């Protein structure tokens, strides 16, 4: 669907390759299947400060293992800003659980010492902008169909993307976006065949912005101007700063006792909860567990991440 959008760039990336694309805030990147069943790995950097980059962990925390339309691609702490928004996803099988495949993986698992792999493909594409193999980060895996079994083990399922399926990402800041054709041809990831992917960059329109929710803007989305060390370390050796004095937040943490007077009925509830063995060993531990669990359920913003009790 391109109604009202101007096409800025259109290209196809072949198996074994990727491409670093400069996107300005408001532009849209579409990653499209040319024949189907192809995973696209993806890295993303702030175009003006490469130390801000996409973070699978925070994205997973906020949107779960399979982010899709309406979700954001977040940058790593302490920046923690939405870098891009998924505004369209015609398949809905994306993954932020698995790390990128690497040369090590194919050598270790398959005995293949020289093999296409997402880490090296990303590194080669990022080299166009002066980045090194150490700058490649864990990928957002578009069209990668995954799950977790009852024993907690992740698995890769058959790729269900069809020809013409696509995802669209709206840039919320100027970014370097790097999609690549996943290099894993001996895994289930892309149904044992590597296929080209079509990339299109559009100028976004008002309708694209209307498809995202307002992300939070908080004082703890920090920038380098707030860092105690503002410059990027430019040498490889680690050595101690003799002037260093620790300044940890809210330390020392001071414990105090809060007295709570409970009626017989209330004590009976605590005994009943304690007898389940799920909430704590002492009355105070049970009451503290109860309080914070209650507070999280009632007042906390965002996903609760609480086990059923």
């Amino acid at each position, binding site marked *: 669907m391109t109604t009202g959008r101007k096409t800025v760039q259109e290209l196809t990336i072949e198996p074994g390759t990727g491409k670093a694309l400069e996107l300005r805030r408001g532009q849209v990147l579409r990653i499209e299947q040319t024949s189907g069943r192809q995973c696209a790995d993806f890295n993303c950097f702030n175009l003006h400060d490469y130390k801000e980059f996409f973070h699978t962990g925070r994205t997973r925390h906020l949107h779960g293992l399979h982010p899709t339309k309406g979700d954001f691609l977040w940058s790593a702490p302490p920046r923690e800003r939405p870098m891009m928004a998924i505004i369209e996803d015609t398949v809905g099988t994306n993954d932020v659980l698995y790390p990128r495949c690497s040369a090590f993986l194919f050598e270790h698992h398959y005995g293949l010492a020289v093999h296409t792999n997402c880490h090296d493909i990303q590194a080669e594409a990022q080299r166009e902008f002066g980045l090194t193999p150490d700058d490649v980060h864990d990928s957002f895996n578009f069209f990668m169909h995954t799950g977790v079994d009852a024993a907690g083990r992740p698995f890769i399922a058959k790729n269900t993307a069809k020809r013409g399926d696509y995802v669209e990402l709206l840039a919320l800041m100027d970014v370097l976006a790097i999609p690549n054709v996943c290099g894993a041809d001996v895994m289930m990831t892309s149904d044992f065949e590597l296929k080209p992917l079509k990339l299109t960059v559009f100028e976004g329109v008002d309708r694209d912005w209307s498809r995202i929710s307002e992300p939070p803007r908080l004082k703890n989305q920090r920038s380098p101007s707030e860092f105690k060390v503002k410059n990027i370390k430019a040498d490889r050796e680690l050595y101690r700063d003799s002037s260093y004095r620790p300044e940890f937040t809210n330390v020392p943490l001071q414990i105090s006792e*809060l007295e709570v007077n409970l009626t017989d009925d209330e004590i009976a509830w605590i005994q009943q909860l304690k007898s389940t063995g799920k909430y704590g060993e002492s009355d105070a531990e049970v009451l503290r567990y109860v309080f914070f669990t209650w507070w999280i359920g009632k*007042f906390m913003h965002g996903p609760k991440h609480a086990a059923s009790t």
Partner: protein
Amino acid sequence: MTETTVRLRLNQQQLELIDNSIKAGESGSREELIRRALREFAAAHLVATGKTS
């Protein structure tokens, strides 16, 4: 009716969260807020005994 005192071990950050809830009008005191949590948690998680309200 007798009363039993339970002493919760909390750090200053946890107390800050409690005090913020009080400032937001959720309760009149720290103790009252904790007891409200217990009451509502018990109502939701314990088999009804007719004594959770």
